[in-house]
C-alpha cells in the first residue's frame, strides 16, 4: 500500500492508501477532517472546496497520488491559521451577516469565496457581481444573496 505525504492545515501528514482514492475520502474517511463535504463527488456542487497551495480546488476529483509531498492542502479547519487569527475575515463576514442556513455547503462556500477574492486582488481589482455569478457552489437552502453580501464585505477586510 503506497504512503502519501503532504501538508494538511500546516502539519505534515502521511497516509497509507491506494493511489486512486480521491483526496476527499482520504481527508474525511482516513484523516477524520470533516469540513469538506460530499455533495456530488463529480466536481459540480463544490461543497468540498478547499485550497491547494492557496488556490481553490475540489478534492473529490483529485486522486491522492496527484498530491505531492510539497503540496499544502488547506481545509476550512485550517483557514484561520493562514491569517494567524482565530477566524479568517471571510468567516467573520459570514457571522456578521448570518449567512448560513443548514450550513452544509458553507465550508466550501467560504473557501471558494476566499480564493475568488484573492484572484480578483491578484488581478488588481475589486470583486464584482460578474465574479460572484461565476461561483458554482450550490446552496440548496438558497441563501445566495447573503453569500454575495458577505463576500463583498469580507473582501474589504482581506
Amino acid at each position, binding site marked *: 500500500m503506497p504512503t502519501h505525504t503532504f501538508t494538511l492545515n500546516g502539519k505534515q501528514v502521511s497516509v497509507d492508501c491506494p493511489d486512486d482514492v480521491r483526496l476527499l475520502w482520504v481527508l474525511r*474517511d482516513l484523516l477524520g477532517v470533516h469540513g469538506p463535504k460530499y455533495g456530488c463527488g463529480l466536481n459540480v456542487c463544490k461543497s468540498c472546496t478547499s485550497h491547494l497551495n492557496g488556490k481553490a480546488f475540489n478534492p473529490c476529483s*483529485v486522486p491522492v497520488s496527484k498530491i505531492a509531498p510539497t503540496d499544502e492542502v488547506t*481545509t476550512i479547519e485550517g483557514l484561520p491559521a493562514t491569517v494567524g487569527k482565530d477566524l479568517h475575515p471571510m468567516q467573520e463576514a459570514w*457571522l456578521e451577516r448570518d449567512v448560513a*442556513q443548514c450550513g*452544509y455547503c458553507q465550508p466550501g462556500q467560504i473557501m471558494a469565496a476566499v480564493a475568488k477574492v484573492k484572484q480578483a486582488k491578484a488581478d488588481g481589482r475589486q470583486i464584482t457581481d460578474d465574479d460572484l455569478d461565476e461561483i458554482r457552489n*450550490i446552496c440548496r437552502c438558497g441563501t445566495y444573496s447573503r453569500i454575495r453580501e458577505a463576500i463583498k464585505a469580507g473582501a474589504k477586510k482581506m
Partner: protein
Amino acid sequence: MPAHRRSPLRVDPGPHDVGRRRFLGYLIAAPTLAVAAGVGWESIDAESASAAIPSLPLPEEIFDLGDLQDLAAAPTSHLISVQVNSDGTASFAVPRAEVGQGMTTAVAMMIAEEMDLPLNKVVVSLADARPELVFNQLTGGSNSMRSIYLPVRTAAAIARQQLMSTAAAQWRVPASELSTKDGLITHKSGRQASYGSLARAAAVPQSTRTSAELKPQSKFTVLGTPQNRIDAYDIVTGRKTFAMDLDVPNAKPTMVRRPPTINGTVKSVNNTDSVKNMPGVTDVAVLTNGVAVRGETFGQCIDAIRALDVTWGPGTVDGESDETVLKKLKAAELPLVVPNLLSASIDAQFTFAFASNSPLEPDCAVADVRSDRAEIWSSLKVPIDAQQEIATMLGLPQNALKVHVTQGGGSFGRHLFHDVASEAAEASKKMGKPVKLMWSRTDDFRQGRVHPMCISRVRATYAAGNVLSYEQRHTSVQTDFSHGLGEMITATAAKLPVGGNLSFAETIFELTQSSPYNFGVTTQLLNEIPLKFNTGSMRNIYSPNVVCAQELVVDQLAAKMGKDPVEFRREFLKDARLKAVLEKAVEVGNWGKSLPNGVAQGIGVHSEYRGAIASLVEIDCRPETVNRKIRDAVTGPRVTKALIVVDPGFAINPRGLEAQMIGGMNDAIAIALTSSLHMKNGIPLEGSWDNYFYTREWNTPLEMKVVVMPTTTGQPSGAGELAVAPSLAAVACAYARATGTMPTYFPINHGTLGFEPYPLEPSTPQSPTDGLGNAN
C-alpha cells in the same frame, strides 16, 4: 386516551394578551432544576378531535404494553423539559428536526427570553425518537414554531420562577424583592446569585404541578429581535456535525448499487466474490432495492458498486415517462361544472414537471444493529415513525431501537421519510456490522423522493366587472403521506370539514388551499393517480403549483377586465392582512415603474400557516440576458430584483424569518425557470447538480429585499415554506408580462434537455480525476 396524557396545559390563547394568563407545567424530580410542559397534543380536547377523524390511529395502537407501563410509571414523561445546569446553562432537547430552518435558534430565544438568560447560555439539542410524544414529534407543515411557542416559554418561565423562589427562601426575603437579568438573581439589597449556583437547590424531590405567567410581548428583549443562528460559529469553522460526520466505532462507509429503474429489485449478483476482494472492501450484501458494499472509504465503495454485476428485477413505474404520466393526469382530471352562459371565461391548464426535493447533504444514516438491540443516527423529521417501522423490519421491540436525530443538511421535505435509515439498518443487520450508509448524488436524484408531476386546470367566468366563478381542478401523481399525521392535523381536527372517505391527501389539500379572492362560486378540488413513484411533500406541498396557476389566471382576468394586476387584486382580495402586504410591496417595490421592453414586474400573494405574504419580482427576458453563456449552466431569463413582504403574525426571529423568505424565493425561481426531473422509462435522467438546475449564483436576483411587517396577530405563523408559492406565482406572472405569453408548462425550460445524462448503469458515476486542472 389515558388520563395522564390529557391536557395539563392551556394553549390556543386569544391574540395579544397571553402574558396575563397563567400557564401550567411541572417541576420534575431531577438532580438539578428541571421544568416540563406539554406540547401540541395536550393543547386540544383530544377525545373530540379523535372522533372527528375516523381514520386517526389512536395513540394506543402505537404503543405496546411495555411502553404503556413505562408511561404509567412516569406520568410526566410525555412532556418536554427544560433543564437548568450547575454551570449556569439551560438545556433543552427539542422534539423537532433542525434542517437549516433555524428552529433551534428560535427555541433558544424563547428560553432565553422567559428565563432572562443570555442566548449563548441556552443549549438546544435534538431529541431522540420519543414514542410517548405520539404525534408531537413531526417536523413539517411549517408548524414547529406554532406548536411549541407556548409550551417552551411556559417551561422556561416556571424555571425562572422556581429559581427566584429558591433564592427568596435561602435569603429569607419576599420573591417580590428579587429581579432577574442575564442569568443572575438580584435582591434589592444588592445580593446576587447565579442560576447555576441555585440549580441544585431549586430541584424538587417529587414532580409537582405548578404554573407561571409568561412575559407580555411589550416586555420582550430577545423574542422579536434579529438574532444570529446559534450554530453559526460551528458552521463557519466546519465543526457542525451531520450524520456523515459522525464517528460511530466501526461504522464504515457503505454505498449501494441501484437498479436502472425506480424501486427495481435484485434478481441476482453475479460476481460477489471478486468484488469482495477489491481494495478496501469489507462486505457485500443484497438489500431490498440494491446491493450494498461496505469499505474503508466511500471512494472504494464507489469503485466496488460500479464493479458489481447485477441482474435486476422490475421497478414500480417501469415504462413511465413524462408523456405517459401527463396523459394519465389529463384523463383523471375532475370535471369543471360551471357552464359558459352569458359570461365570458378564461380556461387554462398548467403542467408542473416532477421536481426533486434533494437537499445538498445526500441521504445518510449510521446504523448499528445487534441481535437484541439497534441504534440509528439520521436526520429524521418523523423519528417515531422511523423507529416503529425499522424495529418491525428488524424484528426488535420498538424500545430496543434507539433513534437519534442528527442535524440535517437541508430537507425540503426529504427527511419526512426514513428511506436511508431503513436501508442502513437492513445493511447493518445483513452484514452484522455497523455501517455509515450514504446515497450518492445520482442516487438522490434518481431513486430519491420527488415532488409529483401535476396539472392544474382553472376556469373562471366573469361579467359586468365581477368574477362569477372560479374553479380549479388539481390533478397529481399521488403524494406519499405515509409518514403519518402530525399535530398540525390533529390540532385543527375538530374544525375540519372532513368526513366520509376523503383521503388523507385530499384532507391536506383542503387544509392548505383556499382562494383569497371574492370570486363568486369557488371550488378547488384534488384528484390523484396512484402511480408508485417515490414522492413526498416538497417544501410548500401543493401550494406553489396551485397558487401559481391561480395568480396567472388572476392576471389574465385583470387584463380581460381592463385592470392593472395590482388594482385588480386590491379590488378582489378578501383579507385585510393580504391587502396590507400587497400595498407594502407595491410601495417598496415601486410597482408600475417604467421598464424596458422584455423586462417586467410580476406580483403574487398568498396566505397560509396563518401568515400573509406578497412577492414582487422583476424579470429580465431580453435576448442578451437570456442567451448569456456560462459553462455547463442554464442561464435564460433572470429575476434581477426580488421583494418579499411578509406578515408572520409575530416574527420570533426576524433575521431567521428573512433567511427563510430568501430561500423560498430561490426555490420558486428554480421551479419556475430551470429545475425539473425528466422522467424517462421509469427513472429520472438527472444525475447531478449540473443536470438538476437548482438556482445558482448566476440565476439568483442581484437585489433581494425582505420586509417583515409589524406584529399583527401576535402569534407566530409558519414561515419555512410560506414564500415558495407567492414567489413562484410572481416569477410566472412577471415572465408572462415580459414576454407577452402566459407560460403553461413549468419550469419553462423543461422542453429542452440541457445536458448529457449519466448512464443508468452503473448507478453511480465515477468521480473525475482532473480536479487539479481547474484549481483557481
